[in-house]
Every structure is written in C-alpha cells, then in structure tokens.
C-alpha cells in the first residue's frame, strides 16, 4: 500500500505543485499561521511526475481569489484544490491578474508608492510565467518578488 506522508484533510485547501522550496514563502504570503488557527501541513521536495514540488495543506480554510493571486507571484504553476468532506470540490490553477494592487512593495525606496501618499502599491504584470512585474508609478521591476510581499 502507498504510504501517505501527509494525511488527507476533511475540509480546507490543498495547494499543490508549488515550485520546490517555495512552500515557506507561500505560507508567508498567506500570513499563515498568524492569520489562522488552522492546522497546516507542509511537504517539501515531494517527488512527482514533473520533478520535485512542494505541497501545503490548510485545514478548515478555503482560499479566496485575492490570496490565490498572491501565490501566483511566486508559484505560478501551483494548483488550488478546495476540499470538502475529503473530496476535491473545486480545482483551479493560479493565474496572475494583469495588475497587482496592494500586495507587493516597490523595491525603489524613493518611489512615491513608498512615501506617505494615500495610494496602494500597484504593479503591471509584464509576464505571467515566470512572473515579472513593473511598478505602475516608477516603472521599476523588483527582482525578488517574494521578499517584497507586503
């Protein structure tokens, strides 16, 4: 019988096909565990048909689209599985929207979006996979997006 390293969950979200090594960053983006009391399981470097991947399972929490978009910034190939009563109720790929608002901080310290002006950070998505974004205000492209998540 096949051994399951992480047991299935009854209700919640399974984020599969995360770029190997990025599971911790995904958790950081989602603000887990701080924002949730759910049980979270993480598997890293899991072997799959397409090479190594990470998996995150969050019990009793269904991700909303806003959170899904944030994940796409660092795990563009991830899939989101919404689990209800041990069954996959919904499954979808993450996809970056054309614009990212209020999620990433501009890497330019003198960008107006990093000042006290009443605006949210805003990025135009230049490429979805690999993710490349450009600041709407100062046009700078942050190199390490994961480090810039607000």
């Amino acid at each position, binding site marked *: 019988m096949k051994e399951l390293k992480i047991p299935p969950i009854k209700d919640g979200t399974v984020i599969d096909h995360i770029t190997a090594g990025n599971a911790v960053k995904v958790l950081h983006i989602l603000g887990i565990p701080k924002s949730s009391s759910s049980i979270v399981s993480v598997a890293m470097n899991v072997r799959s048909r397409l090479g190594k991947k990470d998996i995150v399972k969050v019990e009793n929490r269904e991700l909303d689209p806003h959170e899904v978009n944030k994940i796409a910034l660092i795990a563009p190939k991830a899939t989101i599985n919404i689990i209800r009563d041990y069954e996959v109720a919904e499954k979808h790929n993450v996809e970056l929207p054309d614009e990212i608002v209020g999620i990433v901080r501009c890497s*330019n310290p*003198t960008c107006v979006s990093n000042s006290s*002006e*009443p*605006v949210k950070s805003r990025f135009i998505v230049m490429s979805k996979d690999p993710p490349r974004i450009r*600041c709407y*205000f*100062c*046009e700078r492209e942050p190199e390490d997006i994961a480090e810039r998540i607000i």
Partner: protein
Amino acid sequence: MDFKGKDIISIKDFSKKEINYILNYGKTMVPYAKGEKYTDILKGKVLSSLFFEPSTRTRLSFESAMNRLGGRIVGFADPTATSQKKGESLADTVRMADSYSDVIVVRHPHEGAARLAAEFADVPVLNAGDGAGRHPTQCLLDLFTILMEKKRIGKNKIVLLGDLKYGRTVHSLAYALSLYGTELTFVSPESLKMPKEVVQECRGFGVEPISTSNLEKAVKDADVLYVTRIQRERFPDAEEYNRVVGTYKVDVDLMKYVKKDLIVMHPLPRVTEIDPEVDKTPHALYFKQAFNGVPVRMALLSLVMGERL
C-alpha cells in the same frame, strides 16, 4: 490624432507615430516660440506649475510656452512656501491645483509622483521630472533637436556620455532613440554605467548598444554627442561623487577627432563636463536645444488642451 485630456507622464506611453506627430506639430510652434508670430489659443486657460524641486529651463520654458499661447500661470517654484511644509500630501496639493486650473505641470523628487498626480487630477498632468525617474518633455525636445538638425532621428550614430546610471534624461532618451533604430554608444565611468534594464529595452527594439570607456574612439564617427552632468544630488555619498566627477571632459581638443557636422547636446545645467570654449564651435547645440523646450512644450500644452493652431 487626439491628445485632448491626455497626461504626459512617460515617453513609454507614446508610440513612434504619436511622437512623430508631436514633433511635427512642434515645428509649427517655432515662430510663435520666438515671438515672430502671435497666438492666443489658450486665452482664458490657467496652468498650475508645481515645482517641488529646483529647475531653471523646464519651469521657465513651460511658463514661456503657456504665455506664448496666451494662457496664464499659477504655482510655485519653492515648496517650502506652501502647505507641503505643513506636511500636506502631494495628492491633496494636486487636488487643489486641479480645481484651480486647466492643466498641471509637476516636478517632484519622488519617482512616480507625476503618475500619482494624474490619478488625483481630472485635468491633464505633464511630468516635468520625477526624481531620478522620467522626464518625457525633455526627451521630446531632445528628439526634436536631433530631428531639426539632422532632418531625421533614425540612422544616426549617437553617443550618450556621462552619468548614465542616475541621469534621468538618458534612460528615456535611450529608449526613444531605440524606437527609431539609432546606433547607440554609451560612454561612462564604470560605476555610472547604463542600467541593464535600459540596455535590455534597447535590445527589444533590435538595437545593440556599445558600451565603452573610450570617448575619443566613440565620438570619431558619431553624428550626435549627448553629454550629461554627473549629478551630485543623486549620489548616495560624496566619496563616490568625488571619485568620478571630471572623468570625461568635452573640450576643443576632443572636437579635433569628430566629424564636421557632429552636434553636441546637453540637457543643462552643465558644470565642468563641457569646456566653455566648445560654445564657440559650430558643434555646440545645447543652448538651441534649451530653446527647443519652448516650441515642444507649446505643442504639448496645445494638444492636451485640445486647442490647436
């Protein structure tokens, strides 16, 4: 082509066709900019001139442009005399200017400030320089100068010299010149090289810029030498500034190596990078270039306000 109500924030917002249109319309403004002809197409219109950073040419040429078109100006050149001093945001200042005028010109030390201003204003916003970021009207007047002197922009060999890292004009200019397929050579001290993003943008248009530190060799067959100042105010520390300032000097000796019809351009102000002796040579174009700011800005004000000659 309709520009009415359009903001002028970045040269990247414009296609080559639109740039050509603006430049050609700018040509018709020259006699009006010189005061040889008179127009009042912007009579009754008010321009807000919001300069949060020092400026001579940009502010004066915008104000001259508005006056030459028959409009009026309100604004400030020193933000310490405004509510900015009390901590008012740029967004609120722009909201006020929006209600007091028909067009806003803004210069600000933060990159992206003009884009932000445009978010809070209904009237058109023209970017007069945002930090080390963009300066589209300078870029347009530089293109205009090359067009007027060389009769075309493409098929020229253009050398960009000086502070290519922090200089805001050269980034936009390299992008715009690449749109026209010009041959580009970048000459700078090692620590002030053109950022790789800008080089990549040039490559995106099929232009492969040459980077070198050998000025004499670079100018030998050049059509345009575009010189920039090493800007003390953009340096994180004085030590780095002192190390590189004075690395290159454009003087009459250098002019011995160049083609007869090479033009020397500079966005000004200059400090020591161009010897005043060069001013007397037929190569010196920088003062004419500064004048060209007036017809180009007249063209832009006329177009965005939808009142044409």
